[in-house]
């Protein structure tokens, strides 16, 4: 029943996208808005709530992720209204975009709500494949090339995840049988897995797949280039939703892996993420356009989320996750306006906004830009505090305390480089270059306001309490 409710809007959207009517646009948007209601409904149920036997189970973690994703989806829909004012897009491409968005959404619901590694993977693959075509909606050679690039690398990454899943399944099958695919059972019996090494190998392969998909080292520019060449709402979907689906997979797998062997997992992820942030921070230092800047920063934040999670602070990871999921799409959506004067013109991008709309836009974008580098009162400020706190705590308990504290310090210095770059970009956007008048449309403005409100909602005591009790 619940599943039907969840899927109906998406299916409806899929069907409507074949209509050649002018007004289909509004119908599509409407169906996109409706997505939120069943999720809010789901949110109120007692957890865990079985949606489809043991296959789809809604617990606190995945409803949160799903809720965040659906808000992002709505924001993106809002911004889509006025996308054609900033870029040239044909109505056909527009409908096609929605068609694949619907598939994407179905895939997402499955992968996020799944309690089953296999279903998780199927959903993820579906979402991945549908995004390939979303990239392609932009009819440029670059987009075409990147769509192929995404197709191949994304497919490799997803295959790696499946490979890992099968290995993990194989490692647990002797004790759990066919049910070894279920996250909750695996977690419960993690300590009894007869071949932990097999599990760890599987986990490592799956993790590499997920990290590749999130654009970690060595794929840093891969994701950035893809987001650069596609339409900006696609980038928003990537950073806001698709990566959520990947990261929730990581959460679930690593939860089990933590039970199996925490030390190995931690060191592996720690080194990997630091390496990623090292590369990303220096790439950000040289970034010259918004899309690349934001997508690189997205990689950085994903790495931080992962790191916070494995350091034993799910609260920090989830808070950071939520904040990032709202902030990054907001920024991506505003690039449509910011890049009015050309892609590589950062200086002065925040000047020349007049009128009420312009002022609000200016204010919100400034706010988002400063929030993304975790200045208070951004939720990221708190999540980083808690996350690094957890990291230090882990360090204190380990045998290599000084080395780890040193590594954390190194990490913070790398983040400072990013901070510096963002501050410098913000200043140059605000105070350098020439002020040219540009237009802000209601669609993107409403999207930004939605994200801002969601960010505030994230900081409410109730939300924080909810996040603290997720795990």
């Amino acid at each position, binding site marked *: 029943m619940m599943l039907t409710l969840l899927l109906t809007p998406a299916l409806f959207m899929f069907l409507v996208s074949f209509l050649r009517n002018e007004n289909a646009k509004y119908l599509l948007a409407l169906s996109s808005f409706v997505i939120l209601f069943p999720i809010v409904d789901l949110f109120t149920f007692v957890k865990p709530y079985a949606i489809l036997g043991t296959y789809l189970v809604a617990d606190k973690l995945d409803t949160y992720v799903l809720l965040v994703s659906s808000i992002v989806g709505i924001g993106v829909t809002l911004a889509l209204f006025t996308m054609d004012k900033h870029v040239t897009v044909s109505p056909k491409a527009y409908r096609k975009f929605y068609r694949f968005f619907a598939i994407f959404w179905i895939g997402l619901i499955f992968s996020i709500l799944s309690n089953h590694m296999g279903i998780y993977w199927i959903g993820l693959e579906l979402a991945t494949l549908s995004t390939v075509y979303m990239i392609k909606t932009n009819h440029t050679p670059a987009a075409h090339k990147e769509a192929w690039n995404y197709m191949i690398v994304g497919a490799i990454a997803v295959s790696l995840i499946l490979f890992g899943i099968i290995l993990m399944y194989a490692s647990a099958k002797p004790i759990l049988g066919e049910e070894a695919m279920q996250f909750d059972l695996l977690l419960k019996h993690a300590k009894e897995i007869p071949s932990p090494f097999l599990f760890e190998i599987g986990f490592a*392969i799956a993790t*590499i797949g997920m990290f590749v998909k999130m654009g970690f080292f060595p794929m840093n520019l891969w994701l950035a280039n893809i987001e650069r060449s596609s339409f900006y709402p696609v980038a928003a979907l990537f950073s806001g939703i698709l990566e959520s689906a990947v990261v929730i997979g990581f959460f679930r797998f690593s939860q089990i892996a933590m039970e199996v062997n925490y030390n190995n997992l931690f060191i592996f992820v720690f080194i990997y993420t630091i390496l990623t942030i090292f590369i990303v921070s220096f790439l950000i230092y040289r970034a010259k356009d918004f899309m690349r800047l934001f997508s690189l920063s997205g990689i950085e934040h994903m790495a931080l989320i992962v790191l916070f999670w494995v350091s034993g602070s799910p609260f920090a990871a989830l808070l950071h996750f939520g904040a990032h999921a709202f902030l990054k799409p907001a920024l991506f959506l505003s690039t449509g306006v910011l890049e009015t004067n050309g892609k590589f013109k950062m200086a002065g991008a925040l000047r020349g906004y007049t009128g009420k709309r312009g002022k609000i836009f200016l204010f919100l974008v400034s706010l988002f830009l400063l929030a993304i580098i975790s200045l208070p009162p951004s939720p990221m400020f708190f999540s980083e505090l808690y996350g*690094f706190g957890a990291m230090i*705590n882990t360090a204190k308990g380990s045998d290599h305390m000084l080395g780890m504290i040193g590594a954390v310090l190194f990490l913070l210095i790398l983040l400072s480089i990013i901070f510096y770059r963002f501050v410098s970009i913000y200043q140059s956007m605000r105070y350098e270059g020439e002020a040219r008048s540009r237009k802000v449309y209601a669609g993107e403005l409403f999207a930004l306001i939605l994200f801002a409100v969601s960010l505030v909602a994230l900081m409410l005591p109730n939300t924080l309490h909810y996040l603290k009790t997720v795990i």
Partner: protein
Amino acid sequence: MFIFDTLSLVFVALILLGSLPNLIYSTGYLPHIERKGYYQLHYFAFIASMLGVVVSANALVFLFFWEIMSLSSWKLILTEVEGKSTIKAARFYFLMTHFGFVFLMLFFLIVSDGNLELDFGSMQLIASKFAYPSLLFFFLILGLLSKAGAVPLHVWLPYAHPAAPSPASALMSGVMLKVALYGLLRFLFDVLYPWPLEWGTTLLIIGSLTSLVGILYAMGEHDIKALLANSSIENIGIILIAFAMGMIFDTLKLPYLSTFSFVAALFHIFNHMGFKSLLFMGAGSVLHQTHTKNIEKFGGLISSMPVTAFVFLFAAMSITALPPTNGFLSEWMIFQSMLGSSHITDDISLKLSIPFAIFALAMTSGLAIATFVKAFGITFLGLHRSTNAKHATEVNFLMKTGMVLSALYIASLMLFAPFYLRFFDDVFVSLGRSSIYAKLFPDGILQMHSLSVHGGIVSPLILFGSLVLVTGLLLLAYRVFDVKERFYHTWACGYRTAPNTQYTSTGFSGIMRRFFSWLYKPQEHIVKETLAGHETKFSDASYTVHIKPLFEVSLYESAKRLTYIISYWVYRLGHFEQTRYPAMIFTLLLFVLFSYRIFADDFSWQTIIIESIMMIMSVKILIIGEKK
């Protein structure tokens, strides 16, 4: 969440005392500012965040307000953007303050065991269990002193403070730096107690260097606000010296001397807040009227802006520690506390560092006089050096009120020093130290005794009274004798006295610059219009000199260059990898699985060697490929 103990309240008082005149001044200054709403929003946020910092009771709240403080002050700097330099200054400031924040955060994360809502008192237990307390100390001082502006983390100050609107720079220099010192007081007492001797010595040396470096650069500065900012660095150094002496005495189990030094530090904190705020306000008024910060463009302002000039003079006297001002009193206390070290017998590092600190402090006060003679003299005396200065008029009533209030505050510190000292004494009593008030004033409030063995005595009021009396008598005599007076031009070797025959600021500090050229490394530009090819005859000449701060060149530029180089290579790597994603995944997978196999299963060196050979091969063949 919040704490209101004596220490906090003293700093709340400090902030309020600093903000109130500033607020009035700021209101008067407002017409000068274009983005009024923006400015006021951040101005009040700034004050509120400083208050928040000093009353916060746990790490989370502290860090929160700390960052808000940085954020709002950064935005304040950006209130009036006049070209690249402001932008650069603001960026640099924010980077430095974030740099400090990183260390502060690490400090808190280590001492709070992940529970950021822990109160400071409970942190002590965790801190004492931590294996490397010195690491904590260094994190703490790196975090706080980068905000306070101690060497070598001071470089941002002379850029950031001048760039902000004057009321804001007065607040930043006068109050914000002290908030950082509040952190030092709070966490050294509450969290990191007891202190090894090395900490005190380290801080002492940092303080000495800071004071020297600060004043030397202040001397060479032409931008009046940068000069004041550099002088702030110097004063922070002085406060740190006193603070360090307190720590050293505490370690050596000399409780009274320790409290004496701490009280001296706190006293100087209050003093510096007063006079530096006032000086910045004065500089702001001058700036407001002349629209330039270049000290060479001022001159003769005392006749057009008498109130500003006299309060500036008063503050300058105080900051140069001339008796009987409050600046003198606190510096006197600091000297006295160092004198108390004469009976330390055991530690050689102390025996070497304390004389050095004394030397630094003495040198500093000498140079401070020169600096402020220059600042006051060139700005307010002589003839106007530019048309802007010529047309300057006295500032409006609100600004004057702000400055006069601030001057009154300084005067109160001078006249009612015992009252303030009792207040400061209470702070340290509340922190569990011995009270020294009774020992400071054993026979009435007229005479203040030093607590060192055979220490000196000072009596500010008597000194003040006698100076006033003697001067008054002399003036009276002058009146009574009814001296004949005549007015005529200044003698200038028979030429007309003109603005351009005066000594310039560059000229004033010329001797210093030459003497300290090893530090200043001045870059001189001389342009001469020679007459008929004669070397020595010229119709027109201009001489400009620019000083590049040594630390900036050696530390910051090299860090910047390093970042640049690394980023270049990473960028190349990043762009190189683009076409070979599958190969990279392949190699990565190989590497991770291999490492898992080796490190997670059985470890042996041979396999590591084999792995590395394999990885090198794989990278070479698959990723780098053949050269075309």
